[in-house]
């Protein structure tokens, strides 16, 4: 029952290192001491540019990497635990598709051009509407299967409407913008974006971290969990709403960043003895580490800004998914 006591501290150290790495990565060569100095102590006449770069460009990007990675990793772990399915990922309950639709509509209608926050707020509205429909469809007493089916249905509808918006778009610039936005990126976000994300992601993370006990009990199935004193309806609401806050905000600010929520809990699960409750905090940290690292790689190898973060995580994630399929097949055979 001791578990791996080093796991969380080690992951936290990696996250801090990557956070610093993220702050120091970019086309403008800024040294470690110089950069942190500018970040923390601010402006003097000769380093005004450095302060601007650190505070307005790199800080929001690093913070968003941290927050969004944490949101994806943790909600992936919580959903996998609740559904007792290692292939579940945060997008399953319709949040990402709803967020994407909202954001795409904001670009399509030109709303996004009005103010900086119009795009993420519209994304949030979409994410929450999608989750409201999923919860309505699931009903009060619906179990995991109903939740998955409702999520799949809402995801398909949102996907179809997003495609419709794309095909109706007469403005080629808007179309390009929509496409790039959908690929997922942390570039060119402001502190305002980071603040909005934090406002929603942090409470989402807090409630999801509180589900550990219930997830542990669900190892025995729903009936035994209920007899151990777990309120299953409440757990479902908390997990769906926590994911809606965390992943809804993440998608609204950064677009779709795939596979993090699927891969991270998977990699960490053996390290915590497959315990769904113990998986939560390391998945939060691991998600943050993965997104921060991927966002550094994107900047190192994609000078021209061609490589999008969401593309990179999918390129890493999709083969991993294949590997999972093959592994599952092997385990079935033996």
């Amino acid at each position: 029952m001791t578990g791996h006591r080093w796991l969380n501290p080690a992951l936290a150290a990696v996250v801090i290192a990557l956070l610093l790495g993220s702050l120091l990565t970019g086309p403008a060569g800024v040294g470690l001491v110089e950069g942190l100095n500018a970040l923390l102590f601010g402006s003097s006449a000769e380093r005004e540019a450095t302060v601007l770069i650190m505070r307005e460009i790199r800080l929001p990007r690093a913070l968003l990497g941290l927050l969004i990675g944490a949101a994806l990793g943790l909600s992936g772990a919580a959903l996998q635990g609740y559904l007792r399915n290692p292939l579940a990922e945060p997008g399953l309950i319709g949040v990402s598709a709803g967020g994407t639709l909202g954001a795409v509509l904001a670009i399509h209608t030109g709303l996004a051009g009005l103010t900086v926050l119009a795009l993420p707020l519209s994304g949030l509205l979409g994410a929450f509407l999608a989750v409201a429909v999923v919860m309505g469809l699931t009903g009060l007493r619906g179990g995991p299967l109903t939740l998955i089916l409702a999520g799949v249905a809402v995801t398909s509808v949102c996907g179809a409407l997003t495609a419709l918006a794309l095909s109706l778009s007469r403005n080629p610039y808007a179309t390009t913008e929509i496409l790039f936005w959908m690929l997922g990126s942390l570039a060119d976000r402001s502190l305002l974006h980071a603040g909005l994300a934090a406002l929603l992601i942090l409470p989402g993370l807090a409630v999801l971290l509180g589900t550990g006990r219930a997830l542990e009990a669900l190892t025995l199935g729903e009936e035994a969990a209920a007899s151990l004193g777990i309120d299953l309806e409440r757990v479902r609401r908390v997990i769906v709403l926590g994911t809606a806050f965390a992943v809804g905000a993440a998608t609204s600010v950064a677009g779709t960043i795939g596979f993090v929520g699927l891969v991270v809990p998977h990699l960490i699960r053996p390290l915590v003895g497959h315990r769904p409750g113990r998986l939560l905090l390391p998945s939060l940290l691991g998600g943050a580490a993965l997104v921060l690292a991927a966002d550094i790689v994107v900047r190192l190898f994609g000078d021209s800004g061609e490589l999008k973060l969401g593309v990179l995580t999918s390129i890493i994630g999709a083969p991993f998914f294949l590997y999972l399929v093959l592994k599952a097949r092997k385990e079935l055979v033996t």
Partner: protein
Amino acid sequence: MRLEAEAVAIGLGGRQILRIVSAHVAAGELVGIIGPNGAGKSTLLKAMAGVLRPAGGRIALDGADCAGLARSEMARRVAYLPQSRIVHWPVTVETLVALGRLPYHGFAVEWDADDRVAIDRALGDLQVAHLRKRLVSELSGGELARVLVARSLAQQPRILLADEPSAGLDPAHQLALFRHLRSLAESGMGVLVALHDLSAAARFCHRLILMKDGEILADGRPDMVLTPELMRRAFDVAAVHGTVDGVPVVIAH
């Protein structure tokens, strides 16, 4: 302590599973629920465990309605062992048994001395202590069945509700399990088990509840329930009830 189903009715998908059933189990007795498949045995156990909410009637613990009891309060008094033996993650035996301690803890779960005693005792009582570091995915069906019983005992309940705990066990372990359940009852626990082995029911249970079609046909001493007449009405078989070497046996033919 006494757990009681009072005029409980439960319907699922338009079908009436339990029609106004009253049954109870009290401290110090091992009670068996017998009856054909689909009689409502599992549903009655689930209702008494608080897992299924009855449409009518109520479940009472020492006379107080369980609906008004906090879930963790209920879980510290009443343990429920489902018929299904699916464990969703390949955790260790020790971890699985330790889940029985959840009702005693709030948010953060670090096992204290009480927990360790309860876990070790449950593992020992079901003769699975040697398996404690093994993964549940590597166990045989019978081993897993005993580990799951150990989980419900680690809960240290006053009332244990077990749905076919002996199914799939070899004769030696089945015997050991019923002996253990009987000794738990004799040391003050109330134990209610659904079972299909009529001879074991005759031999070990203080009292039997015979169910058919969502109703209770009989509730009483084993020799008063396992009569040829009641067996014919419940199971549609002729049953012979006798003793071999002083051990009661029931044979259907």
